């Protein structure tokens, strides 16, 4: 059974249909990539999944329940976490606090919310440090998030999503704006988490997508024009015409 399934999911902004009858199924534990040119509606699709936008029509079945139109803070509690294309962190807070806040949000009970010192949650702090260790930021845990490099902020972005212990992880161009070196690091990270989480990945770097994904959906002008394994996608003539252009099929 797929963990998440969309049925003819549609979002219109006035005359513009940003997401047009998108039906996608993502199997538990798989890495499903969404590719397509800029403006294809990929990020809008994510915003629908996380509740930032309410769909115009269609359904989102997550774990057997229709969650379309659920507000973002509730979606987070269902176990859907995301990273943002444009780095979205808490700049003046420490790196540890950035991640800690994500972990705290997913607590079963918020006991001590307004009176217990935040540093008296040893279990949460430990979990936050483990996540920081996984993305390679544990040494900078005490630094304010605004002081680290762009590449490190992208790692933090990923750590914040991971700290929520998600069942479904939505990664929106985790390597956006990174140097080749940093991109390699990020790809290695995502690869490490493949299998541990169910991941939907938006990415522009085709080679990365082709080597990592279990399945790929190709979006163009809001619609899914093709779906399949990396191999099938590479062979699909329509995809090559619309998107891949000069990339030779291997």
């Amino acid at each position, binding site marked *: 059974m797929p963990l998440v399934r969309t049925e003819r999911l549609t979002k219109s902004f006035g005359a513009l249909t940003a997401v047009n009858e998108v039906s996608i199924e993502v199997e538990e534990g798989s890495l499903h990539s969404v590719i397509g040119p800029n403006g294809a509606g990929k990020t809008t699709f994510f915003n629908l999944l996380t509740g930032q936008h309410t769909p115009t029509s269609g359904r989102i079945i997550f774990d057997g329940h229709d969650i379309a139109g659920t507000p973002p803070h509730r979606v987070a509690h269902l176990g859907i976490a995301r990273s943002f294309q444009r780095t979205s962190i808490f700049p003046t*807070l420490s790196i540890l606090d950035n991640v800690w*806040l994500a972990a705290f949000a997913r607590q079963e009970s918020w006991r001590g919310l307004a009176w217990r010192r935040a540093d008296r949650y040893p279990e949460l702090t430990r979990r936050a440090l483990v996540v920081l260790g996984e993305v390679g930021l544990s040494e900078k845990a005490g630094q304010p998030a605004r002081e680290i490099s762009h590449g490190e902020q992208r790692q933090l972005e990923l750590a*914040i999503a991971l700290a929520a212990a998600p069942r479904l992880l939505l990664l929106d161009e985790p390597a956006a704006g990174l140097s080749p070196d940093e991109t390699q690091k990020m790809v290695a990270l995502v690869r490490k988490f493949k299998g541990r989480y169910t991941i939907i990945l938006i990415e522009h770097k085709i080679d990365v997508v082709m080597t990592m994904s279990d399945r790929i959906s190709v979006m163009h002008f809001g619609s899914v024009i093709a779906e399949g394994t990396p191999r099938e996608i590479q062979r699909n003539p329509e995809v090559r015409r619309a998107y891949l252009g000069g990339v030779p099929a291997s």
Partner: protein
Amino acid sequence: MSKAWLAIVAAVVLLPVFVRQAIATEIWIFAIFGLGLNLLMGYTGLLSFGQATFFGSGAYVAGYLLKYYGVNVFLALGVGIVVGAVLAAAVGYLCVQRSGLYFIMLTFALNQMFYFTAYQWTTVTGGEDGMPGIPRPSVLGFDIHRPLAYYSAVAVLFLLSLWVMKCIVDSPLGKILQAIRENELRAEALGYNVPRMKLAAFVVGGAFSGLAGVLYAMLFGIVPLESIGFVFSGNVVFATLIGGSGSLYGPVIGSFVFIWLSESVSSMWARWPLLLGVAFVIVVLFFRGGVVEAWARFWIWRAVRRAPDAVQADASR
């Protein structure tokens, strides 16, 4: 106990030696008011221009009960806190739906609504004349009519308020509010109900304002109409900004500077608000973090001047 607390306790003990007791008392009352606003403005990033709503309403309701029903002092304080919190919940509910300029204007407009209600409702509030004759009942048998006795009572409540606020800002809630100030979208995506958290900040801020209002009424024996006016709302914003918004002790320092200037210097120089204006301009231009930031920068500057080599070595390491 940390250095900051030692400094505050020392200030509480020494202040009445250096300034008139009534002024000293007013400083700590205004500091409680500022602590409440700071949770909203400094920590949550919500600039409320209507805090006098809760200050004045708490003062009027508790003052009325004290004057006509001779209620117990603890009940009066409790009522002030509850009135402040409940009104803040109502006003906050309306305001957190909007953000930015609209939010500020809404807090201001609702403040004006309460002000004109107090202004018109002369049978209860006394309108322009205020509500005089607020008694100062004794506390557990202690007479607090003497200025120093009342000062001590207020000082204890102030320290208690400061401690409560410290607990709140150090708690998960304090972190969540700062997260909302930094990045509302992300806070929501993490699973925090942003409007509800903002409302929580409002309610706490309202409770602190209400408490300060009752203490103010008992200090002067009157609830003046100004206590619910927008100038009062503005004053607490100025005081908090001058002291340093977003830092726990900022509003305390700000209250000292503000009240001391307005009460001491005003008797010598009628144009004293000019000084306040200059202080405010300096803060906005150079020290966004107020006196607290200026203080921190001074120590860094001094350390650099004393031992430039050591600092440079430290920086290059």
